[in-house]
């Protein structure tokens, strides 16, 4: 009886050995390629994909760019995968670059596809390429960046990110497709002359479609408006340049007679870096306030005309407008919204020199 029991245990344990080969269709890490950057452009009726793959070789990391076409993204990835010696895994994708033409046509299906399949992390950053994407990727290949992650670091907050760059991930873009009251801005890039990339500004995306474009100065205001920290940005006025130390936003929203009113106040704390001529504290302050206000108003008219609510102003009216009508926020209320934007600049210090 006892030997029988032992035998039973042994048989059971030997069965467990069959699970040692782990999951199905498991591919070892050395048989996978993990692209970091994905570029998508639109051919006639096909997508063209660019995958930037960092490859370790002899102590350093080289960058490889592979291309493929397909009617859908997954088909194109599949094609690349079959043509390569190892299988492509989009799990560690960090940046997705769309060609401008494609963005203008609409990225709704692509973004929904990324959210659906879970192959791509929803945290991956989205960018738009203003140049020919072919050139863009061939330039990236040539660039001597050893890590192959240059574009990724460009967006990292603790690396190359600057407050003039809008930061938008896949899930935020997806949210903008369905949300009634919020759109997104996606950074636009160009091939740089002396640097790898050059920032052109941001694309204004309305429900997955690029409808307008703002420049990088306006993007800074956009970031400040969304309380994204704009620390370290150097703002040039007529009288010199200042360093923004802190920003704070205050909003007051009103809804009277089916019309939306918004009063926003941007409080900036700055320190002076450079002055030209005989600028005084007062003149720097007033010039800066004037400059930012007019810049904001210009941007806002542009945005209102495109009916894209990248500032998320509709969020303030969620409790004021019933949900049924909120659906038409962009067309009915946002385009008629009257905005009062104020800037208040506080000069915290003038650096080592005394300024009066």
């Amino acid at each position, binding site marked *: 009886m006892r030997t029988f029991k032992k035998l039973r245990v042994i048989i059971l344990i030997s069965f467990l050995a069959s699970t040692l080969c782990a999951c199905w269709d498991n591919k070892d890490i050395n048989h996978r390629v993990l692209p970091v950057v994905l570029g998508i452009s639109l051919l006639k009726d096909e997508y063209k994909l660019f995958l930037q793959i960092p490859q370790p070789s002899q102590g350093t990391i080289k960058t490889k760019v592979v291309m493929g076409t397909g009617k859908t993204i997954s088909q194109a990835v599949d094609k690349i995968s079959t043509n390569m010696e190892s299988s492509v895994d989009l799990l560690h994708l960090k940046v997705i670059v769309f060609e401008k033409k494609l963005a203008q046509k609409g990225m709704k299906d692509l973004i929904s596809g990324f959210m659906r399949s*879970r192959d791509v992390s929803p*945290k991956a950053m989205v960018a738009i390429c203003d140049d020919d994407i072919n050139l863009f990727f061939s330039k990236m290949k040539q660039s001597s960046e050893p890590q192959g992650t240059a574009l990724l670091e460009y967006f990292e907050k603790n690396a190359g990110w600057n407050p003039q760059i809008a930061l938008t991930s896949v899930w935020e873009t997806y949210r903008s497709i369905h*949300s009634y009251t*919020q759109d997104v801005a996606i950074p636009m890039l160009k091939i740089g002359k002396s640097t790898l990339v050059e920032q052109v500004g941001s694309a204004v995306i309305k429900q997955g479609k690029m409808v307008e474009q703002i420049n990088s100065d306006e993007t800074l205001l956009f970031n400040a408006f969304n309380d994204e920290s704009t620390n370290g940005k150097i703002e040039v006025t007529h009288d010199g340049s200042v360093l923004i130390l802190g920003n704070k936003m205050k909003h007051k929203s009103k809804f009277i007679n089916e019309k939306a009113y918004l009063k926003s106040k941007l409080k900036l704390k700055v320190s002076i870096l450079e002055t030209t001529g005989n600028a005084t504290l007062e003149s720097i302050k007033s010039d800066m306030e004037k400059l930012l206000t007019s810049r904001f108003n210009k941007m806002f008219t542009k945005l209102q005309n495109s009916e894209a609510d990248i500032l998320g102003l509709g969020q303030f009216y969620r*409790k004021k407008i019933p*949900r049924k009508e909120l659906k038409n926020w962009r067309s009915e209320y946002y385009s008629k919204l009257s905005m009062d934007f104020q800037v208040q600049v506080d000069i915290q210090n003038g650096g080592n020199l005394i300024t009066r």
Partner: protein
Amino acid sequence: MDRSFQVVIMYILTHLSLIFFLYPRNIIASTDEGHWIPIIIGLLFHFVTITTYLKGLSYFPKKDLINIYLGIGKGVAIFFLIPTTLYFLMIIILTIRAYSEIISIVFLSKTPLWAIMAFLLFMSTYLASKGVEAIFRTGVLIAFLFLPLIILIFCSSVQNVDWHYLFPIVDKEFTFFTNSSFYVSFFAVGGGFLFLGFIPPFLSYQRKKILIGALFLIPCFVLSVYIPILTFGQATASTLLFPFVVALDTVEMDWLIFDRVTMFFLMSLITFIMLYISLVLWKTIRIANVCFPSFKPTFLTITLSASIFILCLLIPNWNDIERVFLWNTYLRFYVMVAIPISVFYFGKRLRKE
């Protein structure tokens, strides 16, 4: 010996496993605004039910549900226990089928479904065959391993919250009452409390501590729905099958070596669901054992699991799972209402005599 701690832990774990997957989706689908109202109604239901149930059970010290009903009469026992058994069987089949589909959707997309189901069922059957004490001890062990992780990830999930999405806060139409998703959401609300009536002969516990443990579940119920809503907004969240899981996917934690915290969260919840299945399986076997006393419990366990496995294979796709969920809802309401009230009633009557 007082085993309240084990029972409370088990109570929390089984409910956590039920809350985070299907519950957010059901609540978000049931109404467009004012999600807190269906949540509160569910929670009230939960607390009223368990208080009645526990109060009723306290009239029968050291007796389980089977003995209580059998003590009153065979007819009563059949009237209450047959639907309960049916309900348990359906729950096991549904849980295994639905959760293996979830595993397949969320991370093991290439693994065949039967393998995932076989694995889930095998672990649960093994645990169930070892008896209730083993299940509860495993529960405590798993809680020590995974509960801190769950709480940490849960706290981190508020990272992308936009409070404006809280509005509109009031739902004036109460349309969710006519929406079947609202009733399906009771899977999480009333799916896990019945075991309290099956364990008294083996483990004793204090009523008060269970209720205190249940309080811990309130934030879980509320946040599991509100975190996806506050992150994405109702319009977007309603397009997602597992809103909470996707909301977790958006969390960025650079200092953690791992890119996706979701995986840890899901893995922990899967172990909880195994505990839940084994517990329900054990309850079913207890009842089956009374009906067929001549069979050995081990034999019953194995036959039961085998038939459950075959039934699981018969459900072909996700839409059918949702349909079975809906059928199961009628039975669930019967069990959720009838059992606590009947136990309470019989207890009161016994007290008078």
